């Protein structure tokens, strides 16, 4: 990593045309015993203030690795970023010095993890863990920082916050723990919040509450949010736009209502059809046939071709670029028109 001085840290304020965060042609690979795993192969997406981008994909699609690359929390090695840029307010984070990167992390770009029980430190009280943000980054006294922690716990609606500030993570329910995780991440009013499957480990009823809380916090603060999920149902109400990932690439980009109405990639289409729907009660649920691709041994051409009902001969040999459908949509399928029209090839 090239060293840059601290003053190149992106300033806050007006952005003009520049997006808040732009991932550009990002590649991430992992050195493993079995060989090099190309987890992310040229991913690009962007985010504006107040906007929510949902990144959709099954495990292994590269969606979390992309997020970890943005946060700078990949273990290097075995991870490596051979190509690409991550621009935050116009500054490429990948070119920043380690210290400058640490200044962005947690304070400007924050992250929520999937399993709050393992993501919170078991030996420190939740109050200590939340207030650490203020003590370390803002130099507050222990007392003031704890008061701030209680305030935040109130804000994420943890009942009796004042009494519970000295409890340990294992003493909370799953939903409450995720709220603590959220409180910790929004402590310093970050401009970007990355939520990596924030509701996967939770009960369905609690899932809705957490998503609602996130949407509300976002409205209050105008932060940009990246919501990573494998569950199309979760994103419909909160996301503005969706990027669908498969085999380390983005296969479809679209505003949220477009995608639900008419998907332009067979993989997206398959995902939508595999959501149980009340009006289709009694019919067989659709499932995408086959298995997710092996990252060590990716299919030639389009990574999705072994599972694709629209497959033609050139899909096996030619990797499709991200075709532009209109200014706000793209699909990495040679036959996106057929998919849009609904003709089963």
């Amino acid at each position, binding site marked *: 990593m090239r060293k840059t001085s601290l003053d190149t840290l992106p300033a806050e304020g007006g952005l003009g045309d520049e997006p808040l965060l732009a991932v550009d042609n990002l590649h991430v690979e*992992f050195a*493993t015993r079995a060989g090099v795993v190309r*987890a992310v192969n040229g991913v690009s997406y962007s985010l504006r203030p107040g906007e929510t981008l949902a990144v959709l994909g099954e495990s292994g699609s590269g969606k979390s690795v992309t997020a*970890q690359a943005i946060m700078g929390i*990949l273990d290097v*090695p075995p991870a490596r970023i051979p190509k690409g840029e991550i621009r935050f307010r116009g500054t490429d984070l990948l070119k920043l010095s380690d210290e400058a990167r640490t200044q962005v992390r947690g304070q400007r770009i924050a992250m929520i993890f999937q399993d709050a029980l393992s993501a919170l430190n078991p030996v420190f009280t939740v109050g200590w863990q939340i207030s650490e943000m203020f003590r370390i980054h803002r130099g507050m006294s222990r007392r003031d920082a704890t008061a701030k922690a209680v305030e935040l716990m109130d804000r994420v609606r943890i009942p009796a916050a004042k009494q519970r500030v000295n409890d340990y993570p294992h003493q909370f329910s799953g939903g409450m723990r995720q709220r603590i995780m959220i409180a910790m991440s929004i402590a310093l009013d970050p401009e970007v919040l990355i939520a990596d499957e924030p509701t996967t480990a939770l009960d369905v009823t609690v899932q809705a509450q957490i998503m609602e809380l996130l949407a509300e916090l976002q409205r209050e603060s105008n932060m940009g949010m990246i919501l990573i999920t494998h569950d199309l149902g979760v994103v419909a109400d909160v996301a503005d736009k969706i990027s669908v990932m498969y085999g380390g690439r983005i296969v479809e980009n679209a505003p949220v209502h477009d995608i639900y109405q008419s998907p332009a990639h067979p993989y997206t289409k398959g995902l939508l059809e595999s959501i149980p729907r009340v009006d289709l009660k009694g019919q067989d649920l659709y499932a995408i046939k086959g298995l997710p691709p092996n990252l060590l041994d990716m299919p030639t051409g389009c990574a999705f071709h072994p599972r694709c009902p629209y497959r033609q001969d050139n899909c096996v040999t030619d990797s499709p670029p991200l075709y532009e459908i209109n200014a706000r949509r793209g699909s990495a399928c040679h036959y996106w028109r057929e998919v849009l029209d609904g003709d089963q090839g």
Partner: protein
Amino acid sequence: MSSETPQAGPVYSETLTTDQVVTAPSPGRRRRKKEGKPASLWSDAWHDLRRRPMFIVSIVLIAILLVMSFWPSLFTDINPLDARTCELSTARQGPSPGHIFGRDNQGCDVYARTIYGAKNSILIGVTTTILTMVVGGLLGLIAGTRGGMVDTLTSRVTEVFFAIPMILGALLITATFRGQDLGIWIVVMALSVLSWPMTFRIMRAAVITARNQDFVVAARALGASQSRIMFRHLLPNALAPVIVVATINLGGFIAAEAALSFLGVGVQPPDISWGLMIADARNRFLEAPLPLVFPAVFLSITVLAFIMMGDAVRDAIDPKLR
């Protein structure tokens, strides 16, 4: 790490405290053979072991030591058990042709005695290990399978033995039975009485882990008899950690035998043991260190060989522990 991040390397966890060695072998690592038949844990481990230099070195050392204990005459023409080979007048003489390690306080050949000393170390180490594996393993298997009162009772008994310091306890036991002319078997008995609880604990923990796995629950639901479940399902799955710990303990038993013989309650003269040789050489050690150094080096290498083998087998059986 998130579900998506490829696992970069083996998860590390290795320690030799008995409680922690008990990690069931991870099923995820089992490779599949070409015919699609799942490779067994052991053939998988063997495949892995053959590539480990540490394992190969330890196997070679152990093989040499075994030959040395059964056929010591292959290594030396002198029979040190024959008192006529010693000459008091040459006591503590340095290395010379025919006596490459020199002579000890009695003027006996140190090299020949060191070679002949291997037998008792190996014999005591191996028999103690087998005894603790059989007794501790069987009791652990029963306690783990049955649970309830049987388990509570045997577990309490093991705690009693854990509380008694090994060398001191063995010192007491061997001293008690010294008059009965039991030879080296008294050492085997003393060490086994005090160390079967280690094997017991590991076997029991491994059995309890295996007991709750689906295939055992299914076997039980299908009406398999208790003894069938115990020997066909639980034992094979619990055996790996027991064997690992037993191998490492074997090195420990050899060291303990030397310590007891050194204290005069282990192997008795005229029989030969490295511990005894060290005790004999001790008084003149500062002026003539060689008669002590040679058995000490052989002792250390023997212990090292078994501990190295145990380490290697553990790593191969359970990569999580590497």
